[in-house]
């Protein structure tokens, strides 16, 4: 039994004592007592004890009544505007008058009371009925009145306590708290929020119970007491500066709270974060169920050894990433490793950011919690929404993504630009961890540029192509762009609701999509297309289709469907060392596919065979397989009568091509004969114009030839291009009113000299 105060006697009236209490409380606004923590509570407790003691003197039947401090007041943790929890314990038939004598003056003074009026039996019943009442009555003090009554009450509560283990309730409360606040908040509720005083009270209640049932009870540790003191100081400061029972460390109160405590806002933030981290870790050590599978009835007979800390020496890249992915379990383990001093060699910078607060109003969490939430958001992106998960699948480095999320702010508090420093720190850490060089590079670059997309999206003109070019040049590749995109989204969501909303999402996504398009990623990924085609093909053909597509150039894979591929394979399989030609009717044009073994001059022979037989090509797509097989696809114009090219004509062209390939026919001469026969119909002038440019999107050279229509001109131009070492990917041939505009997209020819090429083309056509 403890009263904790010196009873006073003499003249002051109850009102004067209440005034004195209010003066003590209100005086705190002007002057802090000591460091502002337990000393403030002690002063208020003493003042309130004196008030109640004086009020009690006016109560009749004092032998049958006791004034008991309960709850926070019972624990001597009365903060300036806390409710004063008082129970009138009595053994009378009518306690109303005693209660009124005690409570009415306090109500009249505007004090908030948590009051109860009970007999010993009623108090025990109430404690049995709800855990909340039980815990309120676990830590009480007799303030005034019957010691005998209080002793009987204490014995009853001991009896209730023996019968009711508290751990299940406390774990369940803590679990609810963690579900509501999965990551520590900067705007923390220091009383009842995660990492707050209420959790520490749980520790006290458990210890009190063990004491009451006669078990050995270890005292609170120094780190627990330090955390408790910090939280109490901040809570008292919050009450003083707001003049009400406000327990949330909200943005607008950080400066006034700091001033009252004689610190700066960062120091107070750090004090709070360190305290919450300690409380969080101690709770997990005390109640390992919090990070394990939800408890079964059997497991409630718990193993008190808790989760053992790991050694950093065992940490491999895979284990570390697995730890990061495991969320709360990994967080606890890494904190234990840090507390054990094992992380210092691996990631010395962790010590700086672990308790670092973030005071800007848009930051919802301190740095450590923000990093863990970013990891969680990254996991959600990898496994969730198809837009993001498809990008993550393309990146194909979950380790890189998770490590980037964990390390993106590691450079904070190191002095200098945290992105640049962070990139260097991330690289060193990943190397020490034994990551693959590719992952080291990806993570380091991602951390270095983690603000690029966010800052560009909001501060620069996304309609300006130069802005897109700048970003593309900085990221130097689609994979880093994709990684930065996911990191930006995860980081922004994890920062807080003001940093990620539809507005920001639209800007960041627009920037990403435009940069990706500039890199060529507006097209679907090739492997996805191949997979779709193969999956929809006949089962017997799938293996053949797969190997065929894998060996064909990108343009081919992106332009064909399953029927095309099946048809082309039929033609290739029927190929007997020479040439194959297939024709299908289409809307407005026929499609002809020519396959060949890739003999030199093959494409010229094809063009000449078509020209010699009056077959006009509108468009030609030319592809060579890795094994040399040629698969060229032609869109062919209807003949002069408006009818599709007849089978007879195709038969002659096929025969000419086969003869040319086998060396039995000079198709060039045959074209010349035809040209001579039709020369009177052709205009006399050539009006030749050749232009050469670069297609920025594909990197191809684009050659445009404008001239009068001439039989065999296509073969001549092809000859000129092939002899320059160029690879023709696409040819579009447009003929109108005797004039043609032929456009060729060509690759290769690294040493291409446009002027020379132009001369060669002109010479070939004129010849």
């Amino acid at each position, binding site marked *: 039994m403890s009263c904790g105060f010196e009873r006073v006697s003499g003249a002051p009236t109850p009102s004067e004592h209440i005034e004195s209490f209010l003066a003590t409380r209100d005086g705190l606004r002007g002057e802090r007592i000591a460091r502002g923590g337990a000393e403030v509570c002690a002063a208020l407790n003493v003042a309130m004890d004196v008030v109640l003691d004086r009020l009690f003197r006016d109560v009749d039947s004092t032998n049958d009544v006791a004034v008991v401090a309960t709850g926070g007041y019972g624990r001597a943790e009365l903060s300036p505007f806390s409710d004063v929890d008082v129970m009138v314990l009595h053994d009378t038939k009518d306690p109303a008058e005693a209660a009124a004598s005690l409570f009415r003056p306090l109500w009249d003074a505007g004090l908030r009371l948590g009051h109860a009026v009970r007999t010993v039996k009623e108090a025990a019943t109430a404690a049995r009925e709800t855990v909340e009442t039980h815990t309120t009555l676990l830590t009480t003090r007799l303030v005034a009145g019957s010691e005998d009554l209080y002793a009987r009450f204490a014995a009853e509560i001991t009896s209730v306590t023996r019968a009711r283990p508290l751990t299940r309730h406390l774990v369940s409360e803590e679990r609810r708290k963690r579900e509501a606040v999965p990551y520590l908040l900067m705007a923390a509720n220091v009383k009842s929020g995660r990492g707050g005083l209420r959790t520490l009270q749980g520790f006290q209640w458990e210890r009190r119970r063990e004491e009451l049932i006669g078990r050995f009870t270890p005292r609170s540790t120094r780190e627990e007491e330090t955390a408790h003191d910090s939280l109490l100081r901040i809570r008292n400061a919050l009450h003083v500066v707001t003049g009400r029972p406000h327990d949330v460390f909200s943005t607008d109160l950080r400066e006034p709270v700091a001033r009252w405590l004689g610190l700066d806002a960062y120091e107070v933030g750090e004090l709070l974060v360190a305290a919450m981290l300690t409380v969080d870790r101690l709770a997990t050590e005390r109640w390992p169920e919090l990070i394990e599978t939800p408890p079964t009835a059997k497991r409630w007979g718990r193993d008190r050894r808790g989760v053992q800390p790991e050694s950093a020496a065992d940490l491999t890249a895979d284990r570390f990433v697995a730890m990061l992915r495991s969320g709360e379990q990994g967080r606890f383990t890494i904190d234990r490793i840090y507390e054990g001093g094992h992380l210092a060699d691996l990631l010395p910078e962790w010590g700086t950011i672990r308790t670092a607060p973030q005071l800007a109003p848009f930051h919802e969490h301190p740095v450590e919690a923000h990093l863990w939430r970013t990891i969680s958001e990254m996991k959600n992106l990898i496994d969730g929404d198809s837009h993001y998960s498809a990008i993550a699948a393309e990146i194909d480095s979950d380790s890189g993504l998770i490590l980037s999320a964990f390390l993106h702010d590691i450079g904070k508090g190191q002095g200098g630009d945290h992105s640049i420093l962070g990139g260097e720190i991330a690289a060193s850490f990943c190397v020490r961890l034994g990551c693959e060089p590719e992952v080291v590079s990806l993570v380091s670059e991602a951390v270095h540029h983690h603000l690029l997309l966010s800052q560009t999206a909001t*501060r620069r003109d996304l*309609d300006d192509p130069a802005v897109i070019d700048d970003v593309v040049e900085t990221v130097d590749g689609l994979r880093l762009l994709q990684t930065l995109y996911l990191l930006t989204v995860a980081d922004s969501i994890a920062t807080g609701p003001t940093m990620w909303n539809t507005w920001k999402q*639209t800007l960041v*996504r627009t920037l990403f999509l435009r940069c990706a398009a500039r890199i060529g990623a*507006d097209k679907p990924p090739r492997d*996805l297309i191949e997979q779709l085609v193969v999956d929809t093909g006949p089962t017997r053909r799938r293996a053949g289709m797969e190997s065929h597509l894998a060996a064909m150039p990108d343009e081919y894979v992106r332009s064909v469907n399953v029927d095309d591929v099946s048809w082309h394979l039929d033609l290739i399989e029927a190929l007997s060392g020479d040439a194959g030609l297939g024709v299908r009717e289409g809307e407005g044009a026929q499609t002809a596919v020519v396959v060949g073994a890739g003999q030199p001059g093959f494409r010229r022979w094809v063009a000449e065979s078509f020209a010699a037989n009056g077959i006009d090509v509108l468009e030609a797509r030319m592809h060579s397989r890795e094994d040399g097989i040629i698969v060229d696809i032609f869109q062919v114009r209807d003949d002069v009568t408006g009818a599709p090219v007849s089978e007879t004509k195709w038969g002659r062209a096929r025969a000419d091509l086969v003869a040319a390939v086998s060396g039995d026919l000079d198709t060039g001469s045959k074209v010349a004969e035809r040209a001579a026969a039709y020369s009177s119909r052709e205009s006399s002038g050539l009006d030749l114009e050749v232009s050469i440019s670069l297609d920025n999107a594909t990197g191809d050279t684009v050659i445009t030839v404008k001239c009068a229509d001439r039989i065999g001109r296509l073969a001549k131009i092809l000859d000129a291009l092939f002899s320059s070492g160029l690879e023709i990917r696409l040819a579009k041939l447009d003929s109108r009113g005797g004039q043609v505009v032929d456009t060729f997209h060509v690759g290769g020819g690294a040493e291409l000299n446009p002027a020379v090429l132009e001369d060669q083309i002109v010479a070939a056509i004129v010849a």
Partner: protein
Amino acid sequence: MKLILAFIKPFKLDEVGDALKSVGVSGMSVGDISGFGRQSGQTEVYRGAEYEVNFVPKVRLEILVPDELVGPAVEAIVEAARTGEIGDGKIAILEVGDVVRIRTGERGADAV
């Protein structure tokens, strides 16, 4: 007194803020908004899939100014926010009945 409402491109915010300060405007409210005007929406393509943006992100500024500052403030916004491209935004000027500074209780132009 007037309330100037300006809808501008997000990346122009800092420039407009600096320009307003330079003509003597002492404060403004800023909000992130999305909408459409003549600029309408936009479509981007990624991996063959189209992403439509029907409401284009903009920033809305609310600026209380005494009558004599309306002209310079509007001019400052126009100069700083203009790119010459479609979608540069709009400015609206509204009459204000009265203004009260909560801290001091001052009213009218003194409270701006």
